[in-house]
């Protein structure tokens, strides 16, 4: 089952973007509405996944699977 999220790209500054999409139950993959796919890893480590399950918010390092570009951002669970 997928979870609807809002993803805010915060770093690099010039890549700032707000996207919507879906993440897997354990948020290691993000598929955006425009078809891009990102690998995710919690910026503060796997134990930070507790924050995701408790608060629905997580800082992640994101790698665009197509371009290979690396970003940092925040994902927030949408109701």
């Amino acid at each position, binding site marked *: 089952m997928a979870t609807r999220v809002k993803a805010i790209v*915060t770093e690099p500054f010039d890549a700032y973007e707000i996207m919507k999409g879906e993440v897997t139950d354990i948020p290691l993959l993000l598929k955006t509405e425009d078809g891009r796919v990102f690998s995710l890893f919690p910026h*503060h480590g796997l134990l930070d996944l507790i924050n995701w399950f408790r608060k629905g918010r997580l*800082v992640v390092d994101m790698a665009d699977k197509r371009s290979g570009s690396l970003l940092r951002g925040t994902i927030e669970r949408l109701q």
Partner: protein
Amino acid sequence: MKITLDSHISISCTVGKAAVAGAVAGAVGVATFGLGTAVLGTGAAATVASGAVSGVAAGQASIVMENILTGQEVTAGLGEPGDIAQDAFVGAALAGVGRSIDIVRMRARYSGYYSRYISEGELQAIKRTGLLRGGRSGETYFTTDHFVTAKESTSRLALPDVPRYRIDFQIVNHPRLSGPQRVQLWIWPLRPGFRAGFGVEYWTADPVKIRLLEIKILE
């Protein structure tokens, strides 16, 4: 007391074997701790958990090395619950104490201003708004580390992109700060590659209004 040449050689061999076993156990412990923090993170719980795992790994490696050097069966004495629990406790305790000392050291490094490593675009946004990242939503990270090269700052702070400037600034509003914490070592994702991490990071989800003190072009 009569000390023979044989006893000298025997003592030297024993000390040498203990040194080799200790060195291997230490190397295994350090490697496991590095891997643990890279995966679990550098927060309190993650550091203690990594310390416990590395303590167990180092203890078991030490037993294996002793067995090899003394000609015993390699697996003799491995997996004893009492030893594992003791090594885990010692590893966790040492990691916890080490992290506490490190936090005191990181806080002591604050010299009245913070730094952030930024691009030309962000510099213009800061000049225009007085806010880090131009006041955009999302987490804002900064540090007390003062690097002079773009390469070192990218690696130690695990930045996604190579910065052009370092700005030194004072915070003039009251955002809720998190940290200090060590930047997590990056061994994932494989592209664009490795980042050494272990710089100091603070962060906040609130807008950060600043007084800009200095702008330095990175080498």
